[in-house]
C-alpha cells in the first residue's frame, strides 16, 4: 500500500521552486508565490478542479489559473489586461481563449454558472488537430522567427 505524505511532497516542490526563483535573473518568477505554484501541482492534463485554485487571490490567482490551464505564465500584456478583474471575469475570459479549447480543458467544481467557451473558443478548438501535425510543425519551424512567435501565440 502506497502511503503518501502530502506535506513532505509539497515541501519538496516548494523548495525546488524557491531554488529556481533564487537563481532566476529575469523578473518572470519573482511575483509568483509558492502557493500559486503548489496550486497547480498534481493537476490532471484536461480537467482542472477549481477548488485547488479557489484560495488564491489577486495576481496569485491569475498566475495559478494560467499555469493550471496552459502550463505557462501570463506575459506582461496579459497581466495588464487582467489587472483588477475578479476571479469570475478572469475565468470567463480565459475559457474563451483559443488555447483553452485547443487543449480541451474543463473546469470542475466551478462556483460560477456556465463557465464555458463561446463560439470563438469552440471554433479555435477545431484547430487542435493542427497543433499535433508534424508536417505543419516542420513547416512552421522554417518560418522567420517573428512569424514563428505569432504562430506559437495562437496555440498558447
Amino acid at each position, binding site marked *: 500500500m502506497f502511503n*503518501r505524505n502530502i506535506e513532505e511532497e509539497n515541501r519538496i516542490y516548494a523548495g525546488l521552486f524557491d531554488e*529556481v526563483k533564487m537563481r532566476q535573473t529575469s523578473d518572470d518568477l519573482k511575483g509568483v508565490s509558492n502557493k500559486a505554484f503548489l496550486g497547480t*501541482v498534481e*493537476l490532471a492534463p484536461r480537467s482542472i478542479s477549481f477548488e485547488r485554485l479557489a484560495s488564491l487571490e489577486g495576481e496569485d490567482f491569475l498566475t495559478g489559473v494560467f499555469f493550471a490551464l496552459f502550463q505557462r505564465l501570463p506575459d506582461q500584456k496579459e497581466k495588464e489586461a487582467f489587472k483588477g478583474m475578479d476571479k469570475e471575469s478572469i475565468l470567463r475570459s480565459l475559457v474563451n481563449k483559443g488555447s483553452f479549447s485547443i487543449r480541451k480543458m474543463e473546469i470542475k467544481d466551478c462556483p460560477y454558472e456556465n463557465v464555458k467557451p463561446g463560439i470563438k473558443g469552440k471554433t479555435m478548438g477545431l484547430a487542435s488537430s493542427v497543433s*499535433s501535425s508534424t508536417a505543419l510543425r516542420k513547416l512552421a519551424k522554417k518560418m522567420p522567427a517573428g512569424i514563428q512567435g505569432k504562430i506559437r501565440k495562437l496555440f498558447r
Partner: protein
Amino acid sequence: MKIYIDVSMIMIGTKFTGIPRVTMELAKRFYERKFDLVLIEYDVKKDKYRIIDTEGFIEFCKDKKGSRNKLRTDRYISFDGFEKDAVFFDVDTVWKTRVRRSFLYPKLKEKEVKIIPFIHDIIGIDFPQFCQTDDVMNFVDYIGAALNFADRIAVNSNATADTIKDLAKRLGAKEPNIDVALLGGDFKKTCDKDSEENGNLSETVKKIVESGIYIYMVGTVEPRKNHKLLLDAYENILHEKINLVIVGFAGQGMEDLIGRIENNPKYQKGLWYLNGANDDELDYLYKHTFALTFPSYAEGYGLPLMEAMIRRVPIIASDTPINREVAKDRALYFEKDDWKEFSDIVLNLLNDEKAYKDLCGKTKDYVPPTWEDTASDVIKTFEAVYRGQ
C-alpha cells in the same frame, strides 16, 4: 519485463538529436533484447495514453523518415490502467508534455508500477537563467515528482548524479538511489563514414573548409552554450589568425546573437554560421577542423566532446565537472567566462606545433561506450529495483 516509455514528444518532434536520440537508441535496444516494450503517447481527445506501434516506431528510429501517424494504434491505456510491477521508464523530454508528472507518478505508485526517470541534467534548477521560464516551471514539477516518487533514478554521468544528490541535500530530501549509464557513441559507424563520398555536402560547407583553418562549435544556439565567449574571442583577437564555424539550430530569443554573427564584416568569409547541417556535413566539418571548441556553462552530457574524440579531433573546452568527466585529460580547459584565456590557448596551439601535436595525440586511444553498454547499464537499474534496492 514490461517497459512503458512515453514518446509523446518524439511523435510530434522535428529534431532527433540530444534527448530524443537517447530515447530512440534505448528503445531500439530494449526491443532487440525482446523486452515487452510499450510505447505511449498522450491523446488529448481521449485524455488517455494511446499505444504506439512498437515495431513501426523502431523502424522510424532508424532513418527518422515516414509518417508517424501510421504508428498510432486504436488501443489506449488510462492513467489508472498501467500494469503492476511494470517499469515506467521516463527518459524523454517528458516535462514538456501535457501530463504533469506530479499527477502521473502517484497514480503509477498506487498501481505498484516501478518509476524510473532517466534524468539528463538539472540545468533547469541549477541554471534557470538559461532556460525559458515556462519550461523551468514544468521542469520543477517533473524533478519534484522524481524526488518524491521515483523508485530509482538513472543518469548519464557522475556529474549529473552529484548535482541531484547535492540538490536533495539542500532540500533536506532523502538521497535518491542513482545509477550512472554513460551515453554511447557510434564509433564504427563514425569511423567508417566517408562524408565526402556520400554526395550530401552543400557548397557552403565545402567553401567553409576551403576558406582556411577553423575552430568548430556545434550545438543548439542558446545562452548556456556560451557562443558569446567565442564571438568575443574572435572579434577581439582570433579573427586575424583563424576562422570560426558555428553550427546549430537557433533557440528561442537568440536573434541578437545571430544578428551579431551576421553583421560581422567577416561573416561568410572567416566567420560562419549554419542553422543546421546533415550528418555528412557535421562529420565533414569535424574531420577538417583545427579543433572543436565547447565553451558551455552547463551541459547534461556533452555529446560533441565524444563525437570529437571518436574522430580524433583536438578539443578546447570550458572547465566544468561534466566536461572533465567526459573528456578527462584529452582536452585543454579554460575558465568559462575568460575569452582571453581561450584565445591564448588557441594562439599557443597555432604557434607551437609540438603542443598541437600533443593535443591531437590525446584522443588517439579513445574508445567510447556503446549504446549497447548504455542499455545494459539501464537494465541493471531496472533489475536493482526488482531486487528491492
